[in-house]
């Protein structure tokens, strides 16, 4: 999965001593120890695997980070510059690499990024059946209710979205699902099932408009609503009679309610269900499911 992206000196201890199956993140910062995030716990990477000892830790270098970014772009930075401008690179196998460096701006517009100084390699996991706990609250006899997944970063919202759409197809609900995969994360593993179309790397606005016009979806699945433009796209889809399954970053229902961009969607009851995740017991901790009036329907 990480072959050809990480140098052997880093990859081999990870593959042989740590294991990729439970690894969530690998962070490389120039001249700093390499950090691993595994099941919600933080470790340093050493030649012998993971360690808590700073002295045993392996250090990343600037050239190592430059090379990781170059290799992650399949040796073609120009082909992923639009992603780099947004601070990440998505690899074909669903790995998302967050990057930092020197942002080159001209006239208030980001042109590119150079001098990469850190990368955060997020390893996607397929957690089968993880959406089943919430399934009956979201799927009703008359169809799927508009649902927003609320979670802090890395708590499993994308994994939930993927599994939920897959479960729809497994239960013979031939919903034409449209996955708007802005960052190349939705369509990995067994993907979104048998009834899904995927538009990759398009903005929400373009994806919603083109998808609704040309693909006539019953449900649109998309990750990480954040800006006004995303909210407008959701309203557009909702007004067209398309059901929506989306996610957003927030650490609780209370902090979500403070987000100004979502006020209109909340007031108009566009979403009928809110599924809240946290990191309390590691990634994928389901905190609760709420209805459109924010009454808790289920508690764990």
């Amino acid at each position, binding site marked *: 999965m990480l*072959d*050809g992206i990480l*140098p*052997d000196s880093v990859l081999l201890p990870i593959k042989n001593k740590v294991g990729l199956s439970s690894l969530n993140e690998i962070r490389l910062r120039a001249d700093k120890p390499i950090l691993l995030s595994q099941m919600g716990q933080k470790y340093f990477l050493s030649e012998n695997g993971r360690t808590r000892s700073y002295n045993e830790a392996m250090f990343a270098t600037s050239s190592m980070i430059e090379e990781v970014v*170059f*290799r992650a*772009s*399949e*040796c*073609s*930075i*120009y*082909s992923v*510059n639009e992603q*780099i401008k947004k601070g990440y690179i998505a690899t074909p196998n669903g790995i998302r690499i967050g990057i930092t460096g020197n942002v080159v701006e001209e006239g208030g517009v980001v*042109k*590119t990024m150079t001098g990469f100084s850190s990368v955060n390699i997020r390893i996607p996991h397929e957690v089968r059946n993880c959406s089943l706990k919430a399934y009956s609250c979201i799927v009703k006899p008359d169809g799927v209710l508009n649902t927003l997944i609320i979670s802090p970063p890395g708590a499993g919202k994308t994994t939930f979205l993927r599994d939920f759409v897959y479960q729809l197809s497994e239960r013979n609900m031939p919903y034409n699902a449209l996955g708007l995969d802005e960052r190349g994360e939705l369509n990995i593993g067994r993907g979104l099932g048998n009834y899904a179309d995927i538009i990759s790397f398009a903005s929400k606005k373009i994806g919603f408009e083109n998808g609704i016009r040309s693909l006539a979806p019953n449900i649109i699945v998309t990750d990480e609503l954040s800006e006004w433009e995303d909210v407008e796209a959701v309203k557009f889809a909702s007004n067209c009679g398309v059901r929506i399954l989306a996610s957003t970053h927030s650490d609780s229902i209370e902090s979500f309610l403070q987000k100004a961009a979502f006020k209109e969607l909340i007031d108009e009851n566009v979403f009928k269900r809110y599924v809240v995740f946290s990191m309390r017991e590691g990634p994928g901790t389901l905190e609760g499911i709420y209805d459109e009036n924010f009454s808790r329907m289920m508690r764990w």
Partner: protein
Amino acid sequence: MKWVIIAVLFGICVAIGYLFSMKYKKRVQFYTALIMFAQKLDVEINFSRERLKKLIEGMDEKTKRNLFGLDKNFLNYLSGSEELTQEALFKNCPVLKPEEKEMVFLFFKSLGRSDVLGQSKEIQNFVKRFDENLTKCASENKKYGSLSLKLGFIAGLFIVVILL
């Protein structure tokens, strides 16, 4: 028997002259192919933004053949995780002088390292320099290429005359 030896020696002289002239011709072919290669990359990077590996694999056979294995060596580098070195890049490519190798190496090393605009400018700069080299190679080929062939022929004749 004497005539056979004379004929063989004459043939060897002409062949040596031909080989020398081919050296100059190959250099012209190499730079022509390299310019074609760079210009095609420039167009495709601007148009399709396809990954380098796919673009290089899709180059026409004639261009690839005249690059004397540079394309394959570079593809090996793209597929592996080793650093690009001159030894690896110019394996089986005997037509370049050391200072030319340095420039061509820098060209390949710069590929895929910047955004579309930067990459395109960089390629165009290299194409200008390759073009200058092509002009030099073409005039060398004109001067020394045909001269080598003639010299080989004359040397052959000289040996024939002596032996007779």
